[in-house]
């Protein structure tokens, strides 16, 4: 099996409401599908360092990188925990991010 590059996405929770947010071009967005995917570690680490400013400014809490992989042309989280954070509870498909039509790509950067 060829070694696949370690892909990563940067995430955190928003301080005011706890909502899951993802890093996209220096800002935070609400949907995983809009997140930047880092193909190399230095870029990912640089984004994480940049995200710390948002911690200091009380926008988000505890940003961290997590592993994703490409699957049939789609980016997917590797760990179950992140799959659930991206979507919402697996036992309530009517709730969380999965409940909103994915076409609704309104700008939620903060």
């Amino acid at each position, binding site marked *: 099996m060829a070694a696949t590059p370690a892909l990563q996405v940067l995430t955190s929770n928003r301080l005011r409401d706890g*909502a899951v947010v993802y890093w996209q071009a220096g800002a935070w967005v609400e949907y995983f599908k809009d997140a930047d995917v880092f193909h190399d570690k230095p870029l990912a680490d640089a984004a994480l360092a940049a995200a710390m400013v948002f911690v200091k400014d009380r926008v988000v809490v505890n940003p961290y990188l997590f592993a994703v992989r490409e699957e049939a042309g789609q980016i997917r989280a590797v760990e179950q925990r992140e799959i659930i954070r991206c979507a*919402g509870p697996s036992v309530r498909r009517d709730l969380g991010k999965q409940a909103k039509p994915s076409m609704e790509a309104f700008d939620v950067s903060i």
Partner: protein
Amino acid sequence: MYRYDEFDAQFVKERVSQFRYQVERRLAGELTEDEFKPLRLMNGLYLQLHAYMLRIAVPYGTLNAKQMRMLAHIARKYDKGYGHFTTRTNMQFHWIKLVDVPDILEELASVEMHCIQTSGNCIRNVTADHFAGATDEEIEDPRPLCEIIRQWSSLHPEFVFLARKFKIAVGATPHDRAALLWHDMPVEIVKNEAGEVGYRVYAGGGMGRTPYIALLMKDFVKREDILAYLEAVLRVYNQDSRRDNIHKQRIKILVNTIGQEEMQRRIEREFEEIKASGSLQLPQEELDRIKAYFAPPKFETLDDEMPIGSYDFENWKKTNIHKHRAPGYAIATISLKAIGQTPGDISHVQMDALADLMDQFGIDEIRVSHEQNLVLPHARKRDLPAIFARLQKLDLATPNSGLITDIIACPGLDYCDLANARSIPIAKDIARRFENLDRQHDIGELKIKISGCINACGHHHAGHIGILGVDKKGVEYYQILLGGSGAEDATVGNIMGPGFSAHDIGPAVERVVDTYVKLRQNGERFLDTYRRVGMEPFKNMAYLEQMYAAH
């Protein structure tokens, strides 16, 4: 039930303002997340996977209709229309915004509720038998003592920054329904040879990574000395417990490191001093004052006959109705374990409807059980068919109390930041497998308890069959434990072997149960059979499929 007087009301109101100020300081950057975290936890506020989670205290599991309506209101206004009852008899909301919390607390205070010490390294919500005050088995109602403990432990200046959480439960019956011995400090109401009522105190029980059953500390503490004794236990714990390793900071580790006798000696020394100072002596007048709040309702003189009804009603009666102390009355368990639903979840519609039902049938209070069900403690027998019909419409009449589908499950990885694996889908899957009611009755009492991580909110150590979710490189696996008990014969369950995948765990549990059905003798419960035959026969069958697959 207990009602706040002006002092309680002012106290809770000021606590709300205090927390509002803490939130303001966090938002203004005067507190870091590191500093804010223990403060918010002490008020029941977690940051979970999707949002903040707010845990509301339901002291000793008792709620009135007004409070139930308030929980429905909060579910609607601040959450997504539902809440979750926990094994600590509290209510959790999983979609809360930090900025809303001070307002929520204000609303809760208006119905004499709060979130004080529902998390954090402090004395947590005190629990009791959910049949308290209604069962004829008890020496006396444990709730007056619970309320006294609640007040004593609220913002106790010495014990707000303990090494770890500290859980107290009070029992008063030979048959334990409150998982008493699994607590950091179980208190049992007992009678001595002279016929005086007093307290037997244990310490050092707890689940988590290293499960222990509590050990006896003092066989008989006199009524007036109980707070002095509890304070002595807490003081020894606060002074002597480790602070260097988060996994070794519960009182269970201290007790089992220094030993039962040394622990007793250290407590006794503190106890003698505190008792001598007299400051914590509990006057009879105060006990009587608190007791008066818990006086049973005026029971009418009623015919004791149990009504006979439909097939469904009769099934419900078999498991969900228990003997009441007064003739013509019954204790009714409302199952929050409808097949295919999340254990412990309840919608705002159900909460409001239950409050209406309470009003309609003159039931002043409802109870939350640690098994994540609700209980109507004082229902007239003649009203039961009508109550049942209402519950049926609300999908709250599942006739499975104490049966295999009455499963305890923590929120697990679907909601919880600490979880390693999902609990709820496993609970749902197992319930569906055993949905057939005749099969459930044939299997009899079998308690399945599922936790999504080692913290054991789902009490897996105490399950006849316990299930523990673990994480293997980002994939969920489930270990089976057998032989645990949360009753008066409390025992720690034994791990069977390697974990099963989410796909395999349901079939494995079925094979374990089928093995019991084959092996049982003379009306044995699952637990009895396990204790008689041991792990091997169950283990052999549970891993059978895997063995075939491997060959």
